[in-house]
């Protein structure tokens, strides 16, 4: 059995979940800031929500309380509502300006 360079812990520390959540959140934020397609930007928001959900569930497990699960359930509900309205807005924007670039829809009026 070859020795691994890093000794793996037998159980996952809670901090690993939090670090994963941080990485996902920052990736989502990077996409949100750097991407120009409205739909992709919107998906990056969903990614950030997901990252936060992971934190909720991890803390729910740590505290042995169900509240974290309930919170992420609510986050999902809000995300669903947000997706319905957001995609309707994207459809309308595309209908009026025939573009999906965020920079080109910067003016309030046509």
């Amino acid at each position, binding site marked *: 059995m070859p020795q691994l360079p890093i000794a793996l812990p037998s*159980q996952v*520390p809670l901090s690993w979940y939090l670090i994963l959540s941080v990485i996902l959140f920052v990736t989502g934020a990077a996409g949100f800031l750097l991407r120009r397609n409205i739909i992709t930007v919107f*998906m990056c928001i969903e990614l950030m929500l*997901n990252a936060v959900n992971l934190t909720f569930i991890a803390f729910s497990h740590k505290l042995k309380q169900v509240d974290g699960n309930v919170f992420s359930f609510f986050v999902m509900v809000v995300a*669903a509502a947000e997706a319905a309205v957001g995609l309707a807005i994207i459809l309308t924007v595309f209908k009026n300006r025939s573009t*999906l670039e965020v920079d080109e829809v910067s003016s309030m009026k046509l």
Partner: protein
Amino acid sequence: MDVVLFLLFASVAVGCAINLVLQTHPISSALSLIGVMGSLAVLYLLLGGEFIAAVQLIVYAGAIMVLFVFVIMLLNAGAEKRPTRKVLRTAVALPLLFTLAGVGAWLAATQTPKTDAVKFGAYTAGPAEVGRAIFTSYLLPFEVTSILILIAILGAIVLARKEI
């Protein structure tokens, strides 16, 4: 076993998340996001959130992302044009984001007790527990979200009308 599963699905999630940001075509990004959601569902299972893992797949991957894919297909959204004036933005944003990630990771690593390990099966939040919490202590928020959804439906219908 837990560690291996965690590392596997965490790396899938991170890989898919980075792929989401790097891909130029929205449908590739959408599929990467579905990958993130799927691996997060597995991690939720490891954390004992059985109900939320299933809901993650049903609501997020199965409904919200289908809507995204539907809209991308409907608009026939093509690949993003190559960025023209993104250098400055990238130069400012990336260091800030890396700082944020570093601070967040440092806090997570130092502020949680070293002994806090996540034992698989130590705590399970099945549908019964979550349902009891939603319909007792969280009844008011639950009802409020139903109104939120109603408003969202109305908003979506108004926005998607032909005249606007």
